[in-house]
């Protein structure tokens, strides 16, 4: 839940970045309590990657091909990685719970690879990218419904080394 709450906060912050200096007080009132301000996000940091680039891409049911809506995020990830050449990524592949454990480990593996291959295809050195499948064992959402299952079918990129703090 902690990760979910943080992410919601970041979405709001990212939104306020896009606005002019006159921020939307209504939206900020809804956000979880956080002292982070846009100006405190250090360029090249893990936080910068999460907030300003995006760490998660979603997959269709039973699929491991990179969706159109994921390509923009991965393009941004690749551009950011070019800007910060010492950074390495761990790409996690995840599944929803509507499959069996072992098959999902393999499917999560394919999803992680699909993200890696896309990043490589747009110029990221493969040596900077590792993959790991968690199958259905690390969902972000535990409800038994389509919206949760969609959130759980994801490729999640985590900075494993080289980011400024």
């Amino acid at each position, binding site marked *: 839940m902690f990760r979910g709450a943080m992410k919601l906060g970041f979405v709001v912050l990212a939104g306020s970045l896009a606005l002019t200096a006159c921020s939307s007080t209504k939206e900020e009132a809804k956000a979880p309590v956080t002292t982070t301000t846009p100006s405190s996000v250090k360029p090249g940091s893990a936080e910068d990657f999460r907030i300003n680039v995006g760490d998660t891409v979603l997959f269709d049911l*039973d699929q491991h091909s990179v969706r159109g809506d994921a390509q923009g995020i991965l393009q941004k990830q690749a551009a950011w990685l070019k800007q910060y050449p010492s950074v390495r990524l761990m790409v996690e592949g995840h599944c929803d719970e509507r499959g069996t454990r*072992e098959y999902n480990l*393999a499917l999560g593996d394919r999803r992680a690879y699909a993200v890696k291959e896309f990043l490589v295809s747009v110029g990221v050195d493969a040596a900077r990218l590792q993959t790991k499948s968690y*199958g259905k*064992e690390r*969902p972000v959402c535990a*409800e038994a419904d389509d919206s949760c299952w969609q959130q759980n079918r994801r490729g999640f990129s985590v900075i494993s080394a080289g980011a400024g703090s």
Partner: protein
Amino acid sequence: MKKLSQSIFAALALALAAFAPPANAALEIDLNKGVVQPIPIAITDFLGATPRDQQTAAQVAGVIRGDLERSGLFQPLDPRSYVEKITNFSSIPRFGEWRPINAQGLVTGQARQLADGQLQVDFRLWDIFGEQQMIGMSFKTTPENWRRLGHLVADAIYERLTGEKGYFDTRIVFISESGPKTKRRYRLSIMDQDGANPSFLTGGDFIVLSPRFSPTKQAITYMSYERATPSVFVFDLQTGQREVIGQYSGMTFAPRFTPDGNRVVFSYSRDNNVDIYAVDLRSRRPQRLTTDPGIDTSASASPDGARLVFNSDRGGSPQIYVMNADGSGQSRISFGQGRYTTPVWSPRGDLIAFTKQVGQTFSIGVMSPDGQRERILTSSYSEEGPTWSPNGRVILFTRSTPGRGGSSGSSSIWSVDLTGVNLRKVITPGEASDPAWSPLNR
């Protein structure tokens, strides 16, 4: 580890002289008749000469009652209904006093601590209507393993009345789960078949999945996230030592021993392709068995070791395939509607258990090794991962409930008979998944 190694001390068995010559007893169960009415059976509190022996004797009888009742084939009668009070293990019971309470079988016994410190249990199974002893045996072991003596007696009764080996003197390795689904904690765990003597084998700091027993040694193979690359391990239960099956550049998972215990078949993710490999545990040399670009996983060997059943999505959706042990002759056997995963070959060789998903319903089913005669045994929101009792009569599996209203669903182990009856929840210390049955402890 001390406890684990103690539990494998062989219990000595010897037959007691029968009081009547063996004849064609009326009291027998034909397991092939489909749904069987449980046989009413009286299991007396065993006798003991000292207060300590008496207490042990009563506890052993309780273990026997529990085993036979859970099998679904027996209905242990309430001891308070018994008319005759058995006071001498060596005398013939008054059969006429057991007929009014409808007992068809009667079990008598005694327990005693021997001079060498061992605990011995003697028992006799009587056919009430045939008026004769059907079987009499003695078992002994160290006193702290007293529950095993009950399981051995229950196995002997089961075998005498069904003609098939029992499965009570066995253990179950499984994954204990705790915490919300988003931060699940997984611990490799082991317990007796009836839920007694549970213990954790790993601490919960990393994910562990899919444990499976060695058919020949006190060892299990499983998959663990304790290293940077999730890997297949072998855990020696006698030494407590655990080690990876080899150095692989990608994830290794879905392990299972071959019937001779010398090899592990598993899946290996290499260059974006998941294939099935087998590794000889002595030479550590892997052999690649599949090369298809699809996902190939969940391999399970036939009892003679000659063939493997496995899961592949090479045809577009996950289905069940078979191949020879060297990877040749791969062919698909599941053609029904839906997705088929986790095939497991029965120890009798005649059936393959699997998970089937149609829409949002998951089922555990069985089919012949040629894919024919599919039968669904149980269905719910989520069922998966069947494992067979060593006699091929009972299947354990994981059932999970849906998460709703902010609360995670829960996982538990269930058992069901091969015929789809006697569905029961297995008692575990907490939430549990991925059960795997041991071979008989003997």
